[in-house]
């Protein structure tokens, strides 16, 4: 398959230096030029079809939640029973991936309020998942709203996983949650003792600031109690259940999360240019709650996870071909990240099928000329 790349005449001199600070000049420029809070491209879908796709239901999420928490209790129970033998290791690995990765997607879907039809069910799972992922449940609701308003707009989107040039040791370290968890714990302490961070003030409304502090203090108490218990027991076992799985089970959500936007365009207003849909095996799809249909999710965030495969079938004529597997996604993305180490402006531009409307590129007029590379 032909994959088109923008590389052309980029030199060190012409290359853009991105400033990702939410308080920096790139964000201010995006607001000035209308790139921030812009109207995004979306595929035309008849209203009746879209209404059907948006329909909410409790049943799929209740089923998945029972399976998820049931498995977590089972695996943690077996891990504790076999502790400290190495025979407990496989159960911790399984528990860890459900804690440190599946909770990321539960946080995400329930944050949108689309997983369950019943609001309190979304809220309960959202709060549990936020605690496990060490994400302040008050702050991150707003950060994710901004991610949807300004997806991969530099200086506006607080959830850019791969900045340019990529810092590879950080990306790799985050497969074990190292830098992420450290940043999360530091921010938790900041929020609990000093208040809302100035960057957070750019996207969290003032009325919510007391809630941010309250949530951070509750998290600090829970983690402090777990650490105290571990010290009292002279064992890391309590931390194997709460806290550490955010590290040893993070790899799956980082693996799938990098694929969402990694190596693709930034500062555009067409999700087909900056998001990636990847076909995945059923276990990964369960852990990831179908967020592998990522272009579809960004274009239509109202569609619940269980309807995303149907949405994909409905609009695939207008989207670039999905990557066939996680491996294929990495094979496309990783070389682009390596190129971005030297050429920050480099990105992958996938070919659209003949049935698709052209990309919306008005904000991309200054991109260097394109070339094509076989992928």
């Amino acid at each position, binding site marked *: 398959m032909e994959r088109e790349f923008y590389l052309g005449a980029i030199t060190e001199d012409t290359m853009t230096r991105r400033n990702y600070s939410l308080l920096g000049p790139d964000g201010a420029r995006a607001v000035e030029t209308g790139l921030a809070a812009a109207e995004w491209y979306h595929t035309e879908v008849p209203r009746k079809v879209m*209404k059907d796709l948006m329909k909410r239901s409790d049943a799929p999420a209740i089923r998945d939640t029972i399976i998820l928490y049931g498995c977590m209790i089972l695996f943690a129970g077996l891990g504790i029973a076999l502790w400290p033998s190495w025979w407990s290791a496989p159960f911790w690995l399984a528990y860890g991936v459900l804690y440190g990765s599946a909770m990321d997607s539960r946080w995400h879907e329930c944050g949108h*309020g689309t997983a369950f039809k019943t609001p309190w069910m979304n809220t309960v799972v959202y709060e549990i998942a936020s605690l496990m992922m060490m994400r302040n449940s008050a702050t991150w609701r707003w950060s994710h709203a901004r991610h949807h308003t300004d997806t991969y707009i530099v200086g506006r989107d607080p959830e850019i996983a791969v900045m340019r040039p990529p810092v590879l040791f950080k990306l790799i370290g985050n497969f074990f949650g190292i830098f992420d968890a450290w940043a999360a714990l530091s921010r938790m302490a900041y929020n609990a003792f000093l208040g809302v961070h100035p960057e957070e003030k750019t996207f969290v409304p003032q009325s919510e600031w007391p809630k941010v502090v309250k949530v951070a203090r509750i998290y600090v108490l829970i983690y402090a109690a777990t650490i105290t218990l571990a010290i009292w027991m002279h064992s890391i076992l309590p931390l194997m259940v709460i806290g550490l799985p955010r590290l040893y089970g993070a790899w799956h959500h980082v693996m799938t999360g990098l694929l969402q936007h990694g190596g693709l365009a930034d500062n555009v207003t067409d999700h087909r240019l900056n998001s990636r849909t990847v076909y995945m095996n059923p276990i990964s799809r369960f852990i990831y709650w179908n967020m592998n249909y990522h272009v579809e999710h960004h274009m239509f*965030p109202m569609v619940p996870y269980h309807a995303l495969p149907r949405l994909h079938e409905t609009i695939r004529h207008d989207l670039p071909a999905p990557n066939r597997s996680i491996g294929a996604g990495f094979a496309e993305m990783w070389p682009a990240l390596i190129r971005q180490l030297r050429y920050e402006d480099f990105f992958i531009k996938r070919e659209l099928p003949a049935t698709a409307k052209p990309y919306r590129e008005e904000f991309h007029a200054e991109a260097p000329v394109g070339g094509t590379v076989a992928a």
Partner: protein
Amino acid sequence: MTQWIDACATDEIDEEDLIRFDHGAQTFAIYHSPEGDFYATAGLCSHENVHLCDGLVMGHLIECPKHNGQFDYRTGEAKRAPVCVNLRTFPVKVEGGRVFIEVA
């Protein structure tokens, strides 16, 4: 000065759904509730300027298509983050199979 504007026919909006209605420089959302009543609110979400007409009506709630914020369209009350500011509502009357809204 207020005036009643003929917005649409009653059968143009499915039950538990909404349509967009533009009048001059203003844009409105007109709703058909599950009980068969009609309501009107401002057409743009109070969070960011997104048309509510692409959203989802569930009972008496309208969910915004952009960030899933929710309003009670009967009162305009903001019900779910990220919306915090209530929606403006407009009086509605139905006459001869037509929906009228009162605008300033």
